């Protein structure tokens, strides 16, 4: 009986392969080298006055400013405002876009009826609504939310529409002939097909929502988050602090990306697209 032996060998090979992929020391080292090179170029350009060091401080002094900032409560409250606005905006956008997308996507009548309106509303740049939000709403959080929700909504909504359109018609008819109710069809047929698309929408929306949150803080200056601090430190000519805050905002963006991608992997662990590259 050679079969069990073959099976264990296959399993062993697969295990070793997955372990090797997880570690990837060469990639890690090269990536680190890339970061170091980038920081070194930054440092040299500033130190040699290729760009005016007052306006373009070297990486080392920006990093030390960032560390000093991290000990201040004002800095963390700004982070709190930004992350809070982002999170709330995402939540509202998700709660609106996912159900609406499913209901509209499942009915070909509603899809055709709303298509032209969606096609027109979607490309409106959400930042164009900033003046409107400032005039019509007085609470900073409301101003931010209007813009963030508008921007994030379309990302999720359109992906959900694609996802629902991708549902296998045979599976749908089968479910119908087995007497599934509308709700059961949504839960057991539509939802699993749609989930990868939904997660893509969430990933895109997360990035857009962060951009918009910071932008409003920067442009309007009523919501005192990271964007506001960036504008303030620049006006006060604390340029190292400006760079440190920008650096931190980028790191926050990376953290949000990683968190969303991690969630995506967990939620879609059963799905082909994730299983293949795991």
């Amino acid at each position, binding site marked *: 009986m050679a079969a069990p032996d073959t099976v264990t060998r296959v399993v062993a090979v697969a295990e070793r392969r997955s372990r090797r992929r997880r570690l990837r020391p*060469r*990639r890690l080292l*090269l*990536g*680190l*080298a*890339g*970061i170091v*090179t*980038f920081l070194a170029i930054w440092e040299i350009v500033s130190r040699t006055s290729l*760009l*005016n060091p007052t*306006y*373009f401080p070297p990486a080392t002094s920006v990093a030390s400013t960032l560390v000093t900032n991290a000990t201040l409560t004002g800095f963390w409250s700004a982070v709190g405002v930004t992350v809070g606005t982002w999170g709330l905006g995402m939540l509202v956008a998700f709660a609106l876009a996912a159900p609406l997308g499913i209901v509209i996507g499942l009915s070909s009548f509603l899809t*055709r*009826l*709303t*298509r*032209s*309106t969606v*096609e*027109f509303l*979607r*490309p*409106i*740049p*959400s*930042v*164009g*609504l*900033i*003046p*409107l939000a400032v*005039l*019509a709403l007085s609470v900073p959080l409301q101003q931010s939310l209007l813009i963030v929700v508008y921007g994030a909504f379309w990302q999720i909504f359109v992906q959900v529409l694609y996802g629902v359109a991708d549902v296998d018609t045979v599976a749908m008819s089968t479910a119908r002939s087995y007497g599934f109710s509308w709700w059961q069809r949504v839960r057991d047929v539509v939802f699993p097909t749609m989930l990868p698309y939904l997660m893509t929408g969430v990933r*895109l929306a997360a*990035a857009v929502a*962060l*951009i918009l949150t*910071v*932008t409003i803080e*920067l*442009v309007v200056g009523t919501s005192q988050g*990271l*964007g506001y601090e*960036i504008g303030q430190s*620049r006006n006060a000519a604390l*340029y190292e602090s*400006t*760079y440190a*805050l*920008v650096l931190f*905002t*980028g*790191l*926050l*963006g*990376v953290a*949000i*990306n990683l968190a969303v991608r991690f969630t995506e992997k967990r939620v879609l662990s059963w799905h082909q697209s994730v299983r293949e590259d795991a």
Partner: protein
Amino acid sequence: MRKILSPIGFALGLPIVLIVIWYVATLGATNPFVPKPVELVQEFGAVWFGDRFVGDVVPSLWRFAAGTTIAIVLGIVLGIAVGLNRGLRAFTEPVFEFFRALPPPVLIPILALVLGRTDGMRISVIVLGAVWPVLLNTIEGVRATDSVQTETSRSYGIRGWNRVRFQVIPSAMPQIIAGVRQSLPVGIILMVISEMLYATAGLGYSITQFQRQFAVPEMWSGILMLGLIGYAVSMLFKLVESRVLRWYHGLKDLENAS
């Protein structure tokens, strides 16, 4: 006849209903923040078709066009170079991840320091924001080229520029186009924001000025203008996409039909 009329009916039905509701609801309204449709259209013509068109709209659009064009070219060229080289890909990945995650508007205060309040600064902001979707999608598209194709090219001795021209670019094209699609709205957003901060002319500047002067109908007309530009850009893109990717859509249709 029904076949022609029903799509038109579906396309125009909801917008017409919404505009009628809007018209009726604002007939007797006195809220200064809510515009009336007829007033808005009149205002739109009065505000934008005159000096402002040359003074604000054209420079904005020019910066948008310049910025996104540079971003697309740069993204594709760099993307092909990085995508073809595994080592370079690993080397640049973390830095690219950082810049992609960095919300581009925060670069405006910094670039205004280094480059001053110039057109160059505004175009650089657009480039620095819009390049990432194109770049990362190109890398991904180049990386995912079919290995059978690659080996066939190799055994036929197709290498260097010819391989890029005839194998890599066509097979990465759908991904590249997807990247361009994502980069266009980013470009428009950055065009507006770069004019809201440190500017003296442009669409974003005008809209902010209207808001500060409480010129509400003018402000609404500015938002409408932005909406129309966004719509026009996305329509134009669809046209380009359907030409460039005609073979790809044809292929997909065949696959779906079988």
